[in-house]
């Protein structure tokens, strides 16, 4: 039976040894859920411990429901990213919707009001009908849930790659704000023996059972449709009420602890809350409000019904807590009491159905150092040296129309990006910028990570993801502060996948140290593979940065004619893993661009300093598609054309499409050019003048001339065409 719950034989033996006897059925179900890969991180824990997690601004690191950083003026930004990829592969709307629900609850359980959502997504090519179905469903689900709870979806990204055809990656990041002194952590609030555990929110049904053990911790194969009952169903209206009730409970100081219910439902929430407080609990399943009669103990214990929270309440405050929940239309039930001793004792119908040490479910679970073995290098000649005699104009159109590059308007217009009234910059900007109410501060948020570089070199792929996320934040003028992350990988029981994971952790670690952006938490999603095809190693990085004055935020697009365009940083001959190589040459091969983290850090410092002096009229990261794409995007976004002359000895297609790191395309008023040159010299960043903004034409001197309008048409129509729609919206 333990195998049906996803437990291996040696894990079963370990349970027997811990309990000193054979486990009861309900206990097996609890271990099956808590020791699943998704909940226990058993294959990744020892490696995650090597990540840099400390920094001057970090208030809460990994280990709580979300991370938190100090953003000044007494405010804490709380943020985390999670995956919900396996449910989304089966049932894209609900999988994505409940992914949003889950991450939002992680934020409110820290005492923070959710203020932004970002969604980095990866799908297979849109030429396949199933991938179109998945994209449409996931986007509808994110919008359907997110729009209904009053949290703006302000950013994210979408990439397409063949290995994601059967395994979409749905990662969701949520950011919240709290007064630093109000943060809810196991350190900030004291739970007492005898305090009550109150379940509030929705009732408990049979949805989502096996969500973590069966669905999220195993590969997908032909029987997957049968796993549909394991997909949770979301109710965003209930979530909105949950948000308001929870924040009111915290504001009134009524709680000793707060935890959201997610993977492994009641078992996880009760055991984690008790273990964090150094205690045990007496849990009575008869007290749990049920959605349907006749639910077995293991079902109640592992149900993943959504929109439920667990509060730890001193008995003297129970009436006040109930009153707040009732006012918001939410049911409450006292389901457990905290006890000394550390044992989680569960009763149902008058009998004891489980009695286990709480810690053995949470912290004392298995930890594996799985074998790893370097994966074979990707075959193929490096496209950097492939002769290319095509014309640069057609190449530009092909790259601009490539789904990874083309406008995602079809997607982001399905999201409410303006509710709460604080969105200074949303989609179309390198990083989203939202204001911190009552201050002049802005938070800059970016989520980045595509697998292509990781496919070629997992260490570099992960380092690039961190660098790109920080660069996207820095071009807006914000100082990158810290990251959350979601590690999307294949089956860790296969040595090459485990090797990719460890290499990615190494790359992420080195980049975070060099860029001073510690890891505050995150999520690991393994088993993203079917048959023998695994996704590329895809660490997705959620970067949070700080703008001291949001009014000094630097836009992405050219804002006016008559500005001087400069390239900060240097372009090298590096087409390995580039959009050009894939879209025009049809290959994914070679080495990713080099990454000099010292140069990257210097670029960020220059961008932040220049923004603080109001020196830059615009700034854009050229890493996706290269310099030509960045210039065109800036023209389309700002509404102004340009004329540039690209000097240098490299072949023109290399200059246009190389994806060298540590660069930024900026525009500056003519009378301030000298200041820019001085600032660049002071920071040791190479700088080259490219040309000027203005007019409706786009001129690459010596190569071709076109118009902003023609390019905009190609850029905006690509994705709608692939989805079988004409480009006119609505």
């Amino acid at each position: 039976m333990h195998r049906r719950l996803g437990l291996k034989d040696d894990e079963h033996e370990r349970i027997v040894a811990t309990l000193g006897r054979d486990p009861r059925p309900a206990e097996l179900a609890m271990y099956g859920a808590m020791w699943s890969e998704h909940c226990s991180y058993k294959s990744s824990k020892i490696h995650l411990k090597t990540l840099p997690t400390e920094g001057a601004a970090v208030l809460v690191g990994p280990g709580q429901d979300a991370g938190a950083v100090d953003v000044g003026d007494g405010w804490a930004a709380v943020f985390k990213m999670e995956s919900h990829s396996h449910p989304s592969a089966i049932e894209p709307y609900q999988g994505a919707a409940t992914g949003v629900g889950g991450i939002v609850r992680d934020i409110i359980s820290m005492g923070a009001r959710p203020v932004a959502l970002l969604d980095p997504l990866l799908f297979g090519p849109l030429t396949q009908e199933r991938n179109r179905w998945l994209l449409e469903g996931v986007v509808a689900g994110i919008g359907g849930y997110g729009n209904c709870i009053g949290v703006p979806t302000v950013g994210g990204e979408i990439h397409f790659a063949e290995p994601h055809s059967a395994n979409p990656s749905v990662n969701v990041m949520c950011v919240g704000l709290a007064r630093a002194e109000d943060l809810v952590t196991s350190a900030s609030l004291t739970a007492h023996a005898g305090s009550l555990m109150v379940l509030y929110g929705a009732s408990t049904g049979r949805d989502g059972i096996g969500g973590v053990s069966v669905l999220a911790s195993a590969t997908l194969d032909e029987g997957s449709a049968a796993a549909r009952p394991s997909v949770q169903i979301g109710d965003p209206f209930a979530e909105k009420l949950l948000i308001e009730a929870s924040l009111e409970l915290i504001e009134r100081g009524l709680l000793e602890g707060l935890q959201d219910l997610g993977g492994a439902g009641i078992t996880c929430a009760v055991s984690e809350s008790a273990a964090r407080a150094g205690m045990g609990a007496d849990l009575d399943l008869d007290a749990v409000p049920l959605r349907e009669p006749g639910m077995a103990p293991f079902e109640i214990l592992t149900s993943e019904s959504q929109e439920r929270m667990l509060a730890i309440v001193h008995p003297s405050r129970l009436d006040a807590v109930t009153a707040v929940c009732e006012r918001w239309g939410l049911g409450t039930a006292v389901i457990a009491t905290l006890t000394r001793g550390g044992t989680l004792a569960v009763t149902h119908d008058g009998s004891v159905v489980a009695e286990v040490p709480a810690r053995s479910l949470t912290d004392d679970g298995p930890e594996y150092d799985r074998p790893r073995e370097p994966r074979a290098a990707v075959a193929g000649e490096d496209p950097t040296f492939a002769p290319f005699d095509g014309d640069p104009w057609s190449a530009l159109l092909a790259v601009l129309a490539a789904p990874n590059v083309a406008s995602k308007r079809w997607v982001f217009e399905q999201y409410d990006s303006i509710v709460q009234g604080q969105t200074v910059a949303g989609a179309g900007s390198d990083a989203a910028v939202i204001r911190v109410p009552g201050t002049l501060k802005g938070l800059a948020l970016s989520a980045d990570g595509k697998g292509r570089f990781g496919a070629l070199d997992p260490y570099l792929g992960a380092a690039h993801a961190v660098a790109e996320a920080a660069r996207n934040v820095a071009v807006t003028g914000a100082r990158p502060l810290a990251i959350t992350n979601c590690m999307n990988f294949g089956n860790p029981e296969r040595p090459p996948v485990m090797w990719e994971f460890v290499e990615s952790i190494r790359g992420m670690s080195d980049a975070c140290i060099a860029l001073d952006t510690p890891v505050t938490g995150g999520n690991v999603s393994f088993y993203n593979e079917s048959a023998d095809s695994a996704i590329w190693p895809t660490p997705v990085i959620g970067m949070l940065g700080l703008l001291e004055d949001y009014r000094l935020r630097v836009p992405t697009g050219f804002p006016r004619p008559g500005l001087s365009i400069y390239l900060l940083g240097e372009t090298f001959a590096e087409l390995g893993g580039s959009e050009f190589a894939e879209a025009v040459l049809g290959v994914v091969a070679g080495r990713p661009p080099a990454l000099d983290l010292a140069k990257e850090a210097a670029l960020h410092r220059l961008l932040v300093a220049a923004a603080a002096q109001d020196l830059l009229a615009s700034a854009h990261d050229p890493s996706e598609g290269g310099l030509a794409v960045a210039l065109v995007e800036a023209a389309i976004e700002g509404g102004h054309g340009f004329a540039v002359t690209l000097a240098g000895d490299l072949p023109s297609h290399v200059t246009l499409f190389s994806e060298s790191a540590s660069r930024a395309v900026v525009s500056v008023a003519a009378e301030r050019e000298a200041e820019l040159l001085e600032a660049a010299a002071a920071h040791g960043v190479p700088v080259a003048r490219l040309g000027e903004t203005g007019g409706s034409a786009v001129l690459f001197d010596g190569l071709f001339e076109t118009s902003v309008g023609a390019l905009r048409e190609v850029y905006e129509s690509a994705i709608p065409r692939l989805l079988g729609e004409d480009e006119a919206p609505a």
Partner: protein
Amino acid sequence: MTVGLPRIGVITFPGSLDDRDALNAVATMGGTGVPLWHGDHDLLGVDAVILPGGFSYGDYLRCGAIAGHAPIMDEVRSFAERGGPVLGICNGFQILCESGLLPGALIRNRSLRFVCREVTLRVETAQSVITADLTPGETVAVPIKHGEGAFMARPDELARVRDQGLAVFRYAGPDGVVDDAHNPNGALENIAGIRNEAGNVVGLMPHPEHAVDPDVGPTGGQPLFASLLAAALAGAGA
């Protein structure tokens, strides 16, 4: 009774989302925002009432259907009958139609998708509490964000809308031309907002409360709020 700043009530229903944003817009435009609760029978003596955007009651049954039966709607009806200014934004517009305070209904966007984008509205009449400061033919830029925003009406209702000039705003291009290419949701005759005969009750799908702060968006909502606050002040104490 009221002297000084006009007091504008904003009703929070379970699931209201842009209530805080409406209160902030009122304050930005020089009024006093007064939070009102759906379960109370008290408008707290406000000079105007806003039903804000959101997904009240989760859009269960039909958008705005359940909110129409909330206790506070009794007071909103009496207030409207006495000529008090009532503004329904997005979900608020849906609630006013479901309550019978405005003709017509809002149905699903013809694209079948939620759409969040900035639109241009052409002012159709100055005979309403939110367009008194404007001139017919003028345009304002305001964002929309909805999945069920296509205005529909039965033939007899549509005849009334036409005959009595009840359309307040129509979706238009940047040059003010009303055409299908600039209709974001399939609304009948590009209608974005309507008024009652007296002009004191107005409903519109676009969000003027998200168009008063130049740092975060367009400012087409400023003249709408200015008109509303002036109407509120004029009627204050009535």
